[in-house]
């Protein structure tokens, strides 16, 4: 049972990550491969604040969002100048730069050793130390992010994002300075990733840079591509699928070191097959 709760918490974290990334990739058509960087900044902010200062979890979440959004704002100013595959490449570059910072800014991040002993959240004297209570907390956060995403998509702001995806030059002629829109959604999406990072850090209680490398960005991208771009239910499906897949592989009986690689094989194959036969993913509403 505890194991299902563990999977449930991971599910909630990846729903948050997927929802934010879908706003960017699915709705705005910006192939961002840097989501793990913002996920990491959120995680490190919470980890550092909880282990080295008197901050509580919830204020660390807020501060994490703040730090991440400022970073995303600066990164986004640069990224807003690119599109399509060049956007993907430049964003990937930022992920590597941020990862290098996690690894080498040792005074702050303790480098490859990572930060252990991150505490679980407390609220009004109640500690979320049991996994079941943490699960409830994570699901609440995921629900909140999910509905914020829905709200954005259904607003006229969301409609403009889609128009940017479809034909950026054409929508400009109708009076939209699209750079601002691209920047705004990039910053919002990064803020969401930060929340996931805070949840992850406090749940696992230990973080190191390896969780926030490009591979993780690609994993989150895989979630939304499999589930379906520009569809919020697709995020749920994709997250569920990719979290249950390793369990299914374990069930088949691969030894654990091979199982990890087998998982990569399956992710990769799914990406290739989807691109060949169904580039919009299972529930997607947008053809790349």
């Amino acid at each position, binding site marked *: 049972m505890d194991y299902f709760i563990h999977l449930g918490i991971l599910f909630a974290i990846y729903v948050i990550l997927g929802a934010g990334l879908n706003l960017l990739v699915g709705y705005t058509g910006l192939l961002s491969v840097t989501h793990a960087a913002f996920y990491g900044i959120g995680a490190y902010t919470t980890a550092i604040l909880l282990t080295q200062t008197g901050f509580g979890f919830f204020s660390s979440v807020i501060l994490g969002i703040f730090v991440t959004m400022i970073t995303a704002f600066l990164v986004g100013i640069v990224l807003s100048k690119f599109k399509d595959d060049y956007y993907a490449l430049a964003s990937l570059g930022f992920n590597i730069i941020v990862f290098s910072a996690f690894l080498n800014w040792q005074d702050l991040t303790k480098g490859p050793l990572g930060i252990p002993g991150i505490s679980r959240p407390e609220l009004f004297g109640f500690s979320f130390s049991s996994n079941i209570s943490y699960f409830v907390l994570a699901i609440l956060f995921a629900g909140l992010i999910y509905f914020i995403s829905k709200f954005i998509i259904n607003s*006229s*702001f969301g*409609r403009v994002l889609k128009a940017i995806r*479809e034909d950026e*030059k054409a929508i400009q*002629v*109708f*009076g939209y300075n699209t750079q601002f829109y691209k920047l705004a959604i990039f910053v919002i999406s990064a803020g969401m990733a930060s929340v996931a990072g805070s949840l992850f850090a406090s749940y696992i209680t230990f973080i190191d840079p390896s969780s926030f490398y490009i591979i993780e960005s690609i994993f989150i991208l895989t979630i939304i591509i499999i589930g379906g771009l520009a569809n919020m239910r697709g995020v749920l499906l994709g997250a569920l699928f990719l979290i249950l897949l390793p369990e299914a592989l374990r069930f088949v009986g691969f030894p654990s070191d091979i199982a990890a690689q087998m998982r990569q094989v399956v992710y990769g194959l799914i990406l290739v097959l989807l691109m060949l036969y169904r580039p919009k993913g299972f529930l997607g509403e947008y053809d790349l």
Partner: protein
Amino acid sequence: MNSILKTKKIIKHFDGVKAVDGLSVEIEKGKITGLIGPNGSGKTTLMNLLTGMFPFDGGFVAVDGVSGIKKIRSYDIPAFGITRTFQDVRLFEQMTVLDNILVVLTERNIVSALFERHKKIHHEKAKEVLERVGLWEKKNELAINLSYGQRKLLEIARALAMNSEIYFFDEPFAGLFPEMVKLVSGIIKELRTHGKTVVLIEHDMGLIRELCDYVFVMESGKLLAEGEPEKVLKNKDVIEAYLGE
């Protein structure tokens, strides 16, 4: 003459080729002005320059009282009261017909766009323009699934929704069935009766005669002739430019 839009010696080069070569034109307010000339004479390029699709290399533009403009950014052109359609029909393909219209109606400011207040007004306006081109029934279809003619009509509806002063139509009749041609020419005339200015690129000289009050003939990025359609179309140079094509 009461001009609303002027270009003065406007220039555009593409890799050394002069697509628009020191062109000066003056568009009269409240009239339908035709822009004709053989393929590659620079008509569409001129329209693209005036709507900020790419920068021009020299010359000035004056719009609606603002003169000496050297640089036009595409997202500023609604502020000059300009809207347009595209020769190669540029819709938001994977969006519904209704959303294609609504997106140009809603607030430009990001915060107001998130917390929309005039939903109902925008919906009514969208309904009005879609009904005008007969696409209201199709409002929930994706633009990509429309027929070619319907796509052209949707683009015109999108321009109408902008409620601008100056409308640029780049070959709005190309590939349309006769009844659709009638519909579109009716819309263009109606714009004139409402005091709007229309600039029209068109190859069908019958339509040019029927609609236009004034015509500019372009060749190789330069002005070949200008005047009322009847006179201009009898001009020897103009006839030669077309036959020589």
